[in-house]
């Protein structure tokens, strides 16, 4: 599904290398977690994969189902099946949540040469998916993320994910700012979307999210590279011992 090979990335505005030869492969149907200390480049990786401006790729490649991601515009990557759940979902006053989401769904369908969803079909789908995430009709009508609590914003991200039905989901610290109940709701939403044709890359600081979303593989990232990969136990080990010993061992 997602293949990243020897990726080197620096900030455009300052001469600072963030990713230094990162390689990673997420096969179809799997959930991979990336953990790592602050400043290791986790968020940069999610932005570079989804096409945010401000980064320069100096070496390496990233492909989704064999197609090179790095030459595509952000909206083309979305239509190709990539989705990034933001750490800080953006508020957009004056643009209705539903209007925005319907525009996004239909723009992706159009880009893939599929027929657009009718208003009725869209409404039917969004109501059902919103109900599962405990999102009420009022929230759907409000401007995108405006006046939403931290938990509501994250649930709204999962609603977008459910409606857009991407094949590769990147979640950037989706657990930050969530209480236990909200985290369970978000995790349930993600687990409901798991399937043989969909993969997840879950970026997190803490192991606790991984209690709810069971990963197949855990990667440890440090200083712009993956330094160790393993099973779910690796996350538990970090929770107990911290990054110190492990990073020292990885050199």
């Amino acid at each position, binding site marked *: 599904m997602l293949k990243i090979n020897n990726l080197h990335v620096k900030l455009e505005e300052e001469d600072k290398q963030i990713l230094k030869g990162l390689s990673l492969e997420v096969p179809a149907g799997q959930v991979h977690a990336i953990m790592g200390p602050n400043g290791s480049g986790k968020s940069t990786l999610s932005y570079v994969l*989804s*096409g*945010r*401006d401000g980064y320069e790729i100096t070496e390496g490649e990233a492909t989704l189902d064999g197609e090179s991601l790095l030459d595509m*515009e*952000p*909206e083309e*990557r*979305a*239509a190709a099946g990539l*989705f*990034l759940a*933001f750490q800080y*979902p*953006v508020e*957009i*006053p*004056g*643009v209705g949540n539903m209007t*925005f*989401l319907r*525009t*996004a*769904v239909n*723009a*992706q369908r159009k*880009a893939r040469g599929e027929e657009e969803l009718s208003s009725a079909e869209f409404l039917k789908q969004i109501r059902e998916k919103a109900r599962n995430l405990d999102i009420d009709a009022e929230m759907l009508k409000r*401007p995108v993320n405006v006046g939403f609590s931290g938990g509501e914003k994250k649930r709204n991200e999962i609603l*977008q994910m459910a409606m*857009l039905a991407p094949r590769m989901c990147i979640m950037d610290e989706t657990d930050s700012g969530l209480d236990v109940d909200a985290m369970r709701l978000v995790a349930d939403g993600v687990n409901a979307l798991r399937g043989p044709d969909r993969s997840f890359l879950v970026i997190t600081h803490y192991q606790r999210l991984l209690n709810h979303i069971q990963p197949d593989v855990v990667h440890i990232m440090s200083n712009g590279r993956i330094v160790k990969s393993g099973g779910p136990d690796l996350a538990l080990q970090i929770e107990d011992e911290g990054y110190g010993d492990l990073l020292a061992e990885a050199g």
Partner: protein
Amino acid sequence: MSEAAVKTKDVTPQISGAAKAADALQARLDAMTLPKGGFTAAARADALARLRDMGLPGPRDEYWRYTDPRPFNAPVPQPIPIEERAPDSPLFTDLDRLTLVFVDGAFDAASSDDLMLEGIEIDTLANADAQDSHWAADVYGKLETAGQNPVKRPFAVLNTATASDGVLIRVTGRPAKPVHIIHRRAREDADVSWHHVIRVEEGAELTLLETGMVGARSNSVIEVDLARGAKLHHITAKRAGHQKLGLSHLFARVGAEAQLKAFNLSVNGTLMRHEGVIDIVGDDAVAHIAAAVLGDGHVGPFHHDDTVFITHSAERCESRQVFKKVLKNGAEGVFQGKILVKPGAQKTDGYQISQALLLDERSQFLAKPELEIYADDVKCSHGSTTGAIDETALFYMRSRGVPYDRAIVFLVLSFLADALEEIEDETLRGQINDRLEAWLTRRAKQ
């Protein structure tokens, strides 16, 4: 360097400058028909005398520092071809409303509804001015005159002296539907002026809509007099040709517990200036004035000026100014806004915000926000910002698959949302929003 120095030596002496200004005013007046007037005769004569005294503004006038008045001083405008078909369907056509049609500034009875609506009296200036007395005599030119202090507004004076038509509306109740004034063009060289007088009596309410296409050049005045507890919503969305020159003036007197809400949508136009002069004279009154402006220099020069002066003379009153301009391809926006709180106007709540969204580096926004406060227990705030598109929000939308052009349209609508919020009626607000969206979508690629 030396070239500039030589030029300054060539400047014509001051004495003949004054004479030249008088000649320019005379040439401007000679190009117009001066109505003698019936009930307005005294106001017109007075206006003419005031105008000769103050003259037309020049580019060095402080109040015209950011907007060149000379195209408005010229005796006649450049003709502008009449569009065969408007790119958008007319606004508000699906609403139940009373329509009044003006063609090149003259009332067209045949195209209008009967001037009958329970709760209001409607007349036209041309018709009423055949008589020597009319209720509007208490207002016509009076609020305009009051609005000349401390800043002179010569074109409003010119309008009072020369306007031949307009509507005179006296509201005594709560009419079941809005009044909709529709402007149409017939002549390519029409130099249009109209003068409306709206008086809303105690406890009465009116929604007044004004849309359509105006002449090659226009100069309008609306005088609004709100009695105790009266309400007026005034929503204008006049369409302008790309080469159009337009001036408009709102003079309002807001009585105790009365509410004025004025919203203006402006797109296109070479040179546009909207002046709003609002006197809040009764306690517990509310006055809001807002505008959404879209300017694109791609089709020709664009310059849009909003100039507002709100005076608080009473206690516990609220005023809001919300001005938003979206500028691209070298478009220019100007905002001059002032809140004056007079001695004794305690508990005043004054708010002013002017913001520009510049879609490229060639466009510019000039803002002059002013507060002048002579009372010690007031809350007044003002802010002015000039910014570009929010890159994070743009990326957020695109990461969901929304194409770049469409995301820009969303973000522009998002930027304008605060101004549109000033339109209380949801249906009217929705239609204005749709109109903006259509315009933005059409222009997205340029």
